[in-house]
């Protein structure tokens, strides 16, 4: 059994006050100056501990308020109110919602799983990953108690070719294809996000996090410079079509990626000739024809396929289709052709919450990439000012690499524990067994129609209530 994989986290403070969902509005006019003011009775000491953040010139009060509304309900002159914060609502976009962003900030800061009381507060279901639920076990099947450490749940996976069987020589030695795989203890690879106000320090911080976590950081070879040259073993360079070749990648690199192009074969051959020990992943767009592309890659002996969806978890061409289904299509196709076990399937795009990792794997991926979450861990507000070459409101480019690494390690620590929760409830002890376990998931489109589909008849004169 591998040694136990634990991600040590410790609180890492924010550099800027986070945007909060609501704010306190307290009027002074008409104040009775009560001897015992409701503000002094605050259970959380919010009014006493408030301070001015001199950097942003804002009051910290809203970041401490826990929304119990006791001051609102107690003030005899009704001078205290709370109101929704329009700035919060404006964060991100329809996919990278304010709630997701705030949740990622919390995890990067604390390293803890988000926990709350009184039931699930969200919508019944939603598009993409929100239209599936994961299974649990009770009475008739055992669960695994992973989170409290009483049973070991492994989240490790292999990247590369696993041979269907081993061949031995007459004397009992291994014969034929040697095992060429990269083990990562967490089915999550970091990836350079599509935008961001990044500096060498940011990228170095991410590489440091990848090393500490034992996983990889994927980035275009053009972004590899002296700042990360010592991190070769933990990098996954993406080779551009006009690259001089693998000589340009730092020492120690074990895995490179080649994007699908007209001449992908030539580039792959070129890499193989120069360094046959390198593992190669080929990236194909999640779009029309991906199943055929994947099959052709398998035929050419490619052992790692990366399916890339859009940053909002949809197909790159058909915006009405979701990556949850894209992964299933390709996985099912490969299973049908009897080749699924010979390769590693990676998925990227729109992985925004820990649950998406488990769900992408249930749909058939071996592992996933995350990109924007490692940027949001650095307090990114997804405002996209950087894409217009405007300054970053939270100065990500000025953050030191140690802070960057610590925030990302916290985020992944929290995600790892959440993955253990989901796997433990399902009774699965090995992440490699999660792959393609569709029977242990429940899909909205199946359940909803089978339960409610017959409830569409409303006869003339019926009253609905």
């Amino acid at each position: 059994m591998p040694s136990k994989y634990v991600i040590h986290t410790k609180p890492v403070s924010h550099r800027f006050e986070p945007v909060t969902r609501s704010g306190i509005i307290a009027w002074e006019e008409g104040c009775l100056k009560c001897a015992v003011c409701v503000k002094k009775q605050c259970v959380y000491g919010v009014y006493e501990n408030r301070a001015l953040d001199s950097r942003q010139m804002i009051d910290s009060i809203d970041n401490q308020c826990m929304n119990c509304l006791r001051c609102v309900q107690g003030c005899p002159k009704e001078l205290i109110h709370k109101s929704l914060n329009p700035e919060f609502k404006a964060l991100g976009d329809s996919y990278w919602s304010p709630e997701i962003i705030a949740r990622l900030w919390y995890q990067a800061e604390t390293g803890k799983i988000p926990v709350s009381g009184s039931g699930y507060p969200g919508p019944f279901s939603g598009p993409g990953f929100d239209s599936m639920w994961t299974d649990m076990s009770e009475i008739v099947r055992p669960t695994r108690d992973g989170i409290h450490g009483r049973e070991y749940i492994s989240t490790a996976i292999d990247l590369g070719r696993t041979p269907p069987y081993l061949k031995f020589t007459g004397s009992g030695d291994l014969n034929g294809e040697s095992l060429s795989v990269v083990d990562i203890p967490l089915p999550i690879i970091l990836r350079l996000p599509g935008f961001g106000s990044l500096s060498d320090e940011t990228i170095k911080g991410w590489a440091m996090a990848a090393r500490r976590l034992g996983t990889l950081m994927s980035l275009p070879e053009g972004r590899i410079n002296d700042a990360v040259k010592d991190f070769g073993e933990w990098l996954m360079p993406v080779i551009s079509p006009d690259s001089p070749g693998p000589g340009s990648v730092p020492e120690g690199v074990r895995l490179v990626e080649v994007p699908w192009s007209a001449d992908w074969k030539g580039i792959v051959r070129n890499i193989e000739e120069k360094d046959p020990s390198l593992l190669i992943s080929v990236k194909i767009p999640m779009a029309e024809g991906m199943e055929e592309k994947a099959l052709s890659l398998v035929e050419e002996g490619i052992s790692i396929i990366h399916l890339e969806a859009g940053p909002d978890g949809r197909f790159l061409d058909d915006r009405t289709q979701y990556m949850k289904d894209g992964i299933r299509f390709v996985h099912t196709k490969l299973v049908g052709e009897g080749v699924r076990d010979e390769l590693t399937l990676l998925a990227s795009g729109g992985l925004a919450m820990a649950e998406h990792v488990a769900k992408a794997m249930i749909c058939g991926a071996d592992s996933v990439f995350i990109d924007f979450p490692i940027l949001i861990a650095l307090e990114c507000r997804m405002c996209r000012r950087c894409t217009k070459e405007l300054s970053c409101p939270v100065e990500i480019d000025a953050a030191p690499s140690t802070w960057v690494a610590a925030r990302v390690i916290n985020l992944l620590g929290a995600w790892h524990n959440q993955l253990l929760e989901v796997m433990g409830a399902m009774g699965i002890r090995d992440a490699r067994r999660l792959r393609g376990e569709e029977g242990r998931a429940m899909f909205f489109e199946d359940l909803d129609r089978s339960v409610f589909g017959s409830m569409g008849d409303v006869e003339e004169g019926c009253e609905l209530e």
Partner: protein
Amino acid sequence: MNRHNKFEFPEVIKTPSRFRNPIGKYRLNRTGDCIACGKCVEICPYGVHVMKRGRVFVKNHYLCVGPDCPEPCHEACPVQALSLKRNPDFDVMGDFRWPPDLLASTWHMAEFGEMPQAGLEYRIGDSGGGFDKLRLKFKDGASGHGSGPDGPDEDVDLGLDLNRRNDNAHRIRAEVPFYGGGMSYGSVSITTMLSRIKAFAALGTFCCTGEGGYPDELKPYDDNVITQVATGLFGVKEETIRRVKIVEFKYAQGAKPGLGGHLLGDKVTPGVARMREAVVGYPLFSPFPFHSVYSVEDHKKHVDWIKAINPRALVSVKVSTPNDVDMVAVGSYYAGAHIIHLDGSYGGTGAAPDIAKKNIAMPIEYAIPKVHRFLQDEGVRDKITVIASGGLRTPHDVAKIIALGADGVCTGTADLVALECIRCHNCESGRGCARGIATTDPELMKLIEFEWGTQRVLNMFLAWRKELIRIIRKFGMKSLKELVGRTDCLAHLDYMKK
């Protein structure tokens, strides 16, 4: 005649908010132009305005129904001194499942014992699926049959027979189709616990202790207590098993299906530690699952153990809603359970990882029809009582889940909302609930008085009862039992033909 005719339900006693400023949907602003003519006081049907010593002021903003008002004061005011606007505080509360309208309407029920008259959506939430897309479907003229629209309430039977096996165990009837779900001593205050139990006892039904032991304060209500045996076995003794009529095995709970419980060290006060036979200040883990149960045969051993200690006890089996929930249900029946209690994944009151609350196991709206049909096919549906819980908020939800195949329901969150929970979701942080509901902090606990808490919960459920009677009558039925599994009484907005 019928036994249920003998039961007398308690009276509603008006029980306003314990806070100085109750939160309503609207606010009325009165300018200095007011001439104190008293017109607004006179025409307002809801008692929003009050005249005192020659001056008029808005005393009860929260009772204002806004644009639904038949005689708007702000239009009638001769000097235009009144203006109406939505209260910004209102929208800060609640969430998709319990939008502010549902919170405020539940508070209305807890204060007045009836449904809000106007201004609030009290039937559904904003979750966009499940209950919130289902509608009760009344056929034209249906209310002309059955008991008719106007007979006495006693003509409609909402009662629930809990023992349908007809074995040696108690023949127990709950007078209303709901009972209180388990909330442990330690997770909520003793006042909250007692308020709920006393209210449920007064309604002729039951309330579960949860997994934190059986405090002596509950002794007067022994006949209405369900004691829980859960994986940590905290506070479980032969004596507590013997004291009650119903024993509940908790295999899983909807708040965190497949996961164990964790009471933080801070919450293990001397009182909690004594009750749970544990050490003060040390965190307590309730493991998942029962490590002695990995099959229906193991499960039967558990049930037999209870029957050996208290042969007349009813055994309830509380499980969550995995893919094979139907197998679990039928297995529980064959193991000897009287009640199968399905706790759907969206409910629960306890602190749980958000990832579990949202993603693990299926919503109760899917699980109940699945189990109902499976038990029917197995030919045992009429031998076991099916209880639903997990995200039931209103009497309409109750009617819907019964039409989907449940016999009755179990509540938790709604009771806490009656005690003025605003769903800030911070039950577990620091000293616990800042509003004094889910806390063991000696100072915060004092925020709720026992009498007040009892009456609030009671009022809300009396309103639920009244509303359910209205619904049953409107269906042309005499008993809630007639509604069980009647999916033809439901319509789902997404599947309705245009």
